[in-house]
């Protein structure tokens, strides 16, 4: 679309969908904003007076807020690190010619098709359960004390579960990127005297940088709003040690029936998500223009 004419025609053509999407976003967003300034509790019907920033003050000064904030960041960061490092290694492995490649690839992708609630329950009951779980069996077999993962390392356990779910996604994207690596380039590097490690760091990693960026951006969007895994395993506890922002908003608005407070939390979450997004784009967005 290079000429003036084709550009304005293009704008006209896409305007219906842009307007629809805008309405789709703006209406819930403005309602949330509106509720966040009201005293609006479902247990106290009647007038919903305008209270200014009171809901925000409550939400931000709640001691749970700060721990939810750090939990969210630790969760996102931990899962990103595990999935990207693990994804690169798995992709390297799957890129090798081997017997039964097709089946192995499908097996690797499989966890992605399991619903979050289901996989979290499977992990909780079949692996991490301190009495019947597989890990407890293994610990007992080795003569160790079984470890109650969800009680003593709730956030780490949730990071593990979520990483398990997202690893296939990262692996898949990184594998396709890896397959587009020109083999002559690798051979040239080999002739230039680069050993396996040097080839990995000087050729493969730079080649993957764009794919890694895509994985980080997409996963961050989803990881900021992890919810089901927390709900079915720890319920945010013990205390608030595995509560993230999404879960805090849920606890505020639904467990306390406080629509106003929940909305304020939602708005805060949106602002924080945008801060994270700006940070990410500043840091790694340049990898996307080529």
């Amino acid at each position, binding site marked *: 679309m290079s000429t003036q004419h084709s550009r304005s025609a293009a704008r006209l053509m896409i305007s219906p969908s842009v307007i629809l999407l805008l309405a789709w976003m703006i209406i819930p967003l403005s309602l949330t904003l509106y509720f966040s300034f009201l005293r609006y509790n479902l247990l106290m019907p009647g007038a919903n007076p305008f209270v200014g920033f009171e809901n925000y003050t409550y939400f931000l000064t709640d001691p749970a807020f700060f721990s939810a904030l750090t939990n969210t960041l630790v969760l996102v960061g931990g899962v990103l690190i595990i999935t990207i490092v693990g994804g690169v290694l798995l992709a390297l492995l799957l890129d090798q010619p081997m017997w039964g490649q097709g089946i192995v690839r499908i097996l690797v992708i499989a966890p992605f098709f399991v619903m979050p609630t289901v996989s979290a329950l499977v992990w909780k009951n079949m692996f991490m359960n301190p009495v019947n779980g597989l890990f407890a069996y293994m610990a007992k077999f080795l003569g160790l004390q079984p470890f109650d993962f969800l009680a003593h390392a709730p956030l780490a356990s949730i990071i593990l579960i979520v990483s398990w779910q997202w690893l296939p996604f990262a692996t898949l994207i990184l594998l396709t990127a890896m397959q587009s690596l020109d083999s*002559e*380039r690798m051979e040239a590097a080999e*002739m*230039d*005297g*680069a*050993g396996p490690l*040097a080839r990995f760091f000087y050729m493969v990693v*730079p080649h993957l940088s764009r794919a890694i960026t895509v994985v980080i951006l997409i996963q961050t969007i989803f990881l900021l709003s992890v919810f089901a895994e927390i709900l079915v395993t720890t319920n945010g506890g013990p205390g608030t040690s595995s509560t993230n922002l999404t879960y805090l908003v849920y606890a505020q608005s639904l467990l306390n029936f406080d629509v106003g407070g929940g909305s304020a939390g939602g708005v805060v979450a949106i602002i924080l998500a945008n801060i994270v997004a700006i940070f990410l784009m500043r840091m790694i967005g340049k990898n996307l223009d080529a």
Partner: protein
Amino acid sequence: MGRITLDKVAKRFGEVEVIPPLDLTIEEGEFVVFVGPSGCGKSTLLRLIAGLEDVSGGQIRIDGKDATETPPAKRGLAMVFQSYALYPHMSVRKNIAFPLKMAGMPEDEQKRRIDNAAKVLNLTDYIDRRPGQLSGGQRQRVAIGRAIVREPAAFLFDEPLSNLDAALRVGMRLEITELHARLKTTMIYVTHDQVEAMTMADKIVVLRAGHIEQVGSPLELYRTPRNLFVAGFIGSPKMNLIEGSEASKHGCKTIGIRPEHISVSATEGMWKGRVGVSEHLGSDTFFYVHDTGLADDMTVRVPGEVELKAGDDVYLTPDMEKMHRFDDSGLRLS
């Protein structure tokens, strides 16, 4: 430095024998060109020498030392790939520096060599650009630069010019020849371009299905092709090959006569035919002559411009001195 000996080197991919056992010696400082039809194993042979493929049998010696099991980086050879294989995320300078950096060379020596290579190859103006911002010819020069800074024992080129347009190809051909004249390093060059082979080589190796058909200087191959395959492959346009009674007169199965060794007359000569298509190049004219009763089509090359129209009768007279004779099995009779 740079004498390469192949001793019964063979290569199989699974069941398929791509290169049957083959002997070849490449002398120090020689410019050797591998030619042959597509799929005959030129690239495979080059990659065996480079060490990018493992041999299925035989021995490769570089400067007298057995290098059959030596990894590519340790053979002291540099390769220029058809696709250039530049590192897209590095600047031209970093690309050229890469082999030196991998060898752990001190910074100032690296810089000296890079600046030198950049000057020789006219790369100085875009030394800080990425490969994506260069033209095909410039990329090719970067690839050559990356090869020469290592000061290898031999250069391996796999069809390095086939992605370039005709004019650039002529220019780069000259540059590579000049580079060879200056460095005096062994070079092995794969191509299927006739002209590149004839103009650049000290020694041409003609391959067919992994076999060496003939090894010799360009003019040797042109003057005394050892068999029908080489006769048909070297020379452009192709040699006319005539079988049947005309060949029997000379006591052989096939006779061959190059288009440039036939003289043309409108009035008298040995063979009569009818002019078909003619191609006027200015310096030369190529005629395709039909109905001679010898071969389907005779090609004739006449210097300068000749006024003969399609459909005209024409008489052809071969230069008997320059006629080639081949026996039943296609081998040359001298």
